[in-house]
């Protein structure tokens, strides 16, 4: 019996729960040479506005203990070029393409989503209301419950595509944001985006990246992200897509047990672009060892009974 890795996000069926995280996988096609895109559960595009953006000047990333800070600033080709240049190729590759949608205003979010609704080959929209690296829009919606509700509601009216707001962890109670998104008609939520962070070069007394502040990702943040996923899972009924510091199958399982229906892998792509097949093998191995027929049976299967103090 081969383990069944399939999961569903609303009406969207994925062959497995592994999705490439936005901003960590280019537009997907960059990885064409090293990964068979059709084997992934899905691919999230880089964040897209209506128009092209140059992003922030480099340096844009810096390493930190078990993590990295980035402030790319959403450099991107805009939704129109994406639909014309990238989407057809992604469809050819059999990728399930999630588009990460950005906006500086509520209207821009709606407009970008409309363009995507008219395009062919978009599996879902991931609504980026959580990028910490641009001043206007985005995070302003993501850090206010009303803002979250409003932008999700507005976009909901503009598209029938599966709608997945991506939440920021830089809030007191992330689950209430998941709830606001659910109430506004979201089909799922994804979390976490990066943690706002600062690294200073003590020799020059200057920031290490040009935008001063950036977003922290990687293994360092995983324990916080897992906690947040569990909080959201307990409060909302829509699927939760978890991410933050996933490096291997064990990390994926941690998120799934905590209540993730699917997961995204970001930073680990940079460390190991071949992570995907390793994680798929690791999941199958775990399911065989634990006699789990369907991975979806593990979603939220975390048992909060305290462990024993003693070692075997």
């Amino acid at each position: 019996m081969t383990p069944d890795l399939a999961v569903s996000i609303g009406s969207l069926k994925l062959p497995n729960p592994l999705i490439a995280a936005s901003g960590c996988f280019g537009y997907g096609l960059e990885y064409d040479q090293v990964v068979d895109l059709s084997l992934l559960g899905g691919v999230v595009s880089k964040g897209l506005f209506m128009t092209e953006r140059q992003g922030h000047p480099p340096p844009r990333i810096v390493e930190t203990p078990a993590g990295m800070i980035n402030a790319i600033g959403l450099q991107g080709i805009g939704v129109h070029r994406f639909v014309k240049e990238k989407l057809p190729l992604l469809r050819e590759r059999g990728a399930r393409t999630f588009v990460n949608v950005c906006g500086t205003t509520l209207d821009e979010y709606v407009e970008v989503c409309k363009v995507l609704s008219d395009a062919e080959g978009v599996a879902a929209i991931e609504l980026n209301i959580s990028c910490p690296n641009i001043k206007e829009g985005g995070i302003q919606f993501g850090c206010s419950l009303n803002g979250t509700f409003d932008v999700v509601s507005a976009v909901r009216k503009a598209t029938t595509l599966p709608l997945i707001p991506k939440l920021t962890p830089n809030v007191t109670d992330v689950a209430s944001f998941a709830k606001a998104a659910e109430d506004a008609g979201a089909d799922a939520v994804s979390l976490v985006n990066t943690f706002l962070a600062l690294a200073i070069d003590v020799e020059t007394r200057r920031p290490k990246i040009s935008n001063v502040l950036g977003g922290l990702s990687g293994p360092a943040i995983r324990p916080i992200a897992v906690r947040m996923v569990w909080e959201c899972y307990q409060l909302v009924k829509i699927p939760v897509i978890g991410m933050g510091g996933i490096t291997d199958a064990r990390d994926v399982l941690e998120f799934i047990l905590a209540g993730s229906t699917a997961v995204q892998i970001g930073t680990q792509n940079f460390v190991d672009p071949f992570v995907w097949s390793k994680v798929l093998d690791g999941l199958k191995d775990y399911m065989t060892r634990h006699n789990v027929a369907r991975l979806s049976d593990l979603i939220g299967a975390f048992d909060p009974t305290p462990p024993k103090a003693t070692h075997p």
Partner: protein
Amino acid sequence: MPPIDIAARVIANARLSSDYSVLSLAAPEVGARTLPGQFVMIKPEGVTDPLLRRPFSVFEVLRNAQGAIIGVSILNKRAGPSTRRLYDLEVGDVVLCLGPLGQPFKTVASPAKAWMVAGGVGLAPFATLAESLAAGKTDTTLFYGARTGDELFYLDFFERLGVTLVLTTENGARGTKGRVTIPLEAGLKTLGTGDTAMVYACGPEPMLEAVAKLAARYHQPSQVSVERVMGCGLGGCYSCVVPVRHGGENANLVRSCLSGPVFDGAELVWE
């Protein structure tokens, strides 16, 4: 051919000085695919701190006595934690080696000459380029500048290939004293109309800028290999961008791991 990732054993790690080593890796599949100027993303196996890989030019494509390709080497200069760790590796240690990546140098053929300009560790991409140029019988010169005489490496190697060496050191211990751009400019001045010298450059950014501008001033083409912090080497992260201008267009930030690291010196916008 697509890049591959090899868990490569260290075949040798020759310390050339207290800062430089040549790290040889058993990665035949990478070696077989490498073109001059391409790079690999490297990280010792099992190490989680630093988390990310680091970019290195392929220095040599290694062959055994029979001439079969057995791996690649890198010319490693200690700059921080990763390069320090690579410097300390021993034979038998394992290094993850992803590559080859990026755009190679374009070679030239006679009557055009090839002038390679290297600053310090910027020598790295020129060993394979020199081999390739020598195979094509191109008249090749290496302008090579270092801090001290002790940091001029692999001179025999280039001599054996028939490369003309023009050396400079900052302290004047060997070759001309001062910057490598001084003999380069002297050379450029000697070129007649109709002569072509393709100027290749790799080294510190101020040197690259000076070389590209000199080449342009003397109406010679240039190809420069730039260094930016690279998160992935594959086009995934957009960390490595440089401003490039094609023709009269506005400058665009392009990913140096995909469109570079080798760029037309005339198209780069210096910051």
